């Protein structure tokens, strides 16, 4: 599935949920389902700055594709990073850098996050793009 398709799927899923309590409960479920990172990957390097809770993002490169794993000590945050992992994991650096990230606005996530939270989300996306940029510079496809 392309990044675009995955985003469309998320937007559709959220469209069935009426109130924000439901959306948060859904994010909490996603958070629970996301496999935890082992402590060895919860390094200072993987820690994302600018979040209210601690968030770690780990990346692996295989066959020219990036695979992300993430964790957080807060569940809702974990649910949100889980969305990012679903959307971006398994794609090439080029695909990631070219992607138009629209689902966050479409599901109304940004306006429902406090500005501190929204900044945290932005930091996560930026970190993903940085990884992609570094990978494409190392090994231009």
């Amino acid at each position, binding site marked *: 599935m392309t990044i675009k398709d995955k985003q469309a799927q998320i937007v559709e899923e959220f469209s069935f949920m009426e109130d*924000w309590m439901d959306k*948060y409960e859904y994010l*909490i479920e996603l958070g629970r389902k996301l496999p935890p990172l082992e402590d060895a990957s919860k390094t200072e390097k993987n820690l994302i700055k600018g979040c*209210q809770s*601690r968030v770690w993002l780990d990346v692996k490169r295989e066959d020219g594709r990036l695979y992300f794993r993430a964790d957080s*000590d*807060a*569940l*809702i*945050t974990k649910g949100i990073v889980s969305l990012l992992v679903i959307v971006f994991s398994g794609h090439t650096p080029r695909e990631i850098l070219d992607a138009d990230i629209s689902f966050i606005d479409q599901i109304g996530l940004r306006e429902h996050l406090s500005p501190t939270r929204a900044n945290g989300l932005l930091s996560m996306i930026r970190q993903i793009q940085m990884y992609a940029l570094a990978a494409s510079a190392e090994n231009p496809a």
Partner: protein
Amino acid sequence: MNIAHIREQFPALHQKVHGKPLVYLDNGATSQKPKMVLDVLQEMEGKINGNIHRAVHYLSAQCTERYEKARTVVKDFLNADSEDEIIFTSGTTASLNLLAFSFGQTYVRPGDRIIVTEAEHHSNIVPWQMMCQRTGALLEIWEVDDTGALDPKKLEQILDKSEEVPKLLAITHISNVLGLVNPLAEIIQIAHYYNVPVAVDGAQGIVHKKVDVRSLDADFYAFSGHKLYGPTGTGVLYGKVKYLEEMAPWQGGGDMIETVSLRKGTTYAQPPLKFEAGTANFIGIAGLGAAIEFINGLNIKLIEDHENEITQKAIEALGQIDGCKILGIPGTYYGKTYEKIPVFSMTIEGAHPSDIATLLDRMGIAVRSGMLCAEPLLERFGITSVLRASFALYNTLEELDFFVESLKKVLKILR
């Protein structure tokens, strides 16, 4: 007058957020303002507006009078000796930065020591660290124990450590995390025995305790208007005149000078104006005066009883929640009674504060989560985040119940 009457005077309390009636429990961060204060701001912004201390015209005179009247109101509120001891600033942080700069400039030399406690807000840490960098002084830490209380013996150890006594002790009246009221009078007595002046961060203290700087014998006392039902961008630094007269000014500009000469140099005004460079937030300060007059008009005994009841009931109710641990429990530590204001920072097993706060927000409840600008204290307890519910005089017991019940619901979702 009862709490319901008091509530009526705070328009912001009567609104809905996310379609739910607001339950505002983030008063430790900032308080809502009574109509009396809002009216002053509106009248002055819209009508009675002229720059103070400068012109002879009517509006300027009106504003100067209101600004200086606020100084008298603050002086009386603190039971200070004179208006000259009251410096207006933009808030606690500005007060402490001013103090750290001016005090450091005048009294602190390389190798000197400054004491801060481990329970301080960043505002009462970072300015001192910066001062140490400027002057070559060293920061000494008065550590808290496992309960968050401060052992006076440890202070004496620091004071006794070398021939040169430290230049200053900077300590909070009430920690914004623990809510415990430090036995300031005793602590100041110890410090003064060693001839060490004491600077108090009163951001939380001024809101919940009667502060008498003379009987406390505090050398400096800093607080913000916005936590005291007054306007944002207002604050006070109280300082004993003997220090203020000697201390170098912080910022230069209009109002703080006596004469300015490009050739002969500049001489400064007497305190407090020496420390009030530039156009002050005179409208806000007039509003701060109104806020204090509002408080003066309340039955303080009733408010104290009300806040104590909230504190007791909250500790009981939260204690019954599985895995909930409150930071700062009132009691007797080192032979001193530590009271607690209605500020409840907690950790709850199996649920992250930011998740709890996010879901409570959906139910109309405003609480804080995170480090509360007190990273060293949280680190001391080995935690990275707390949930904090902080009550003001207008919060009700029903709001406490609603908070506890909602918290239980949220925990069912999260755990």
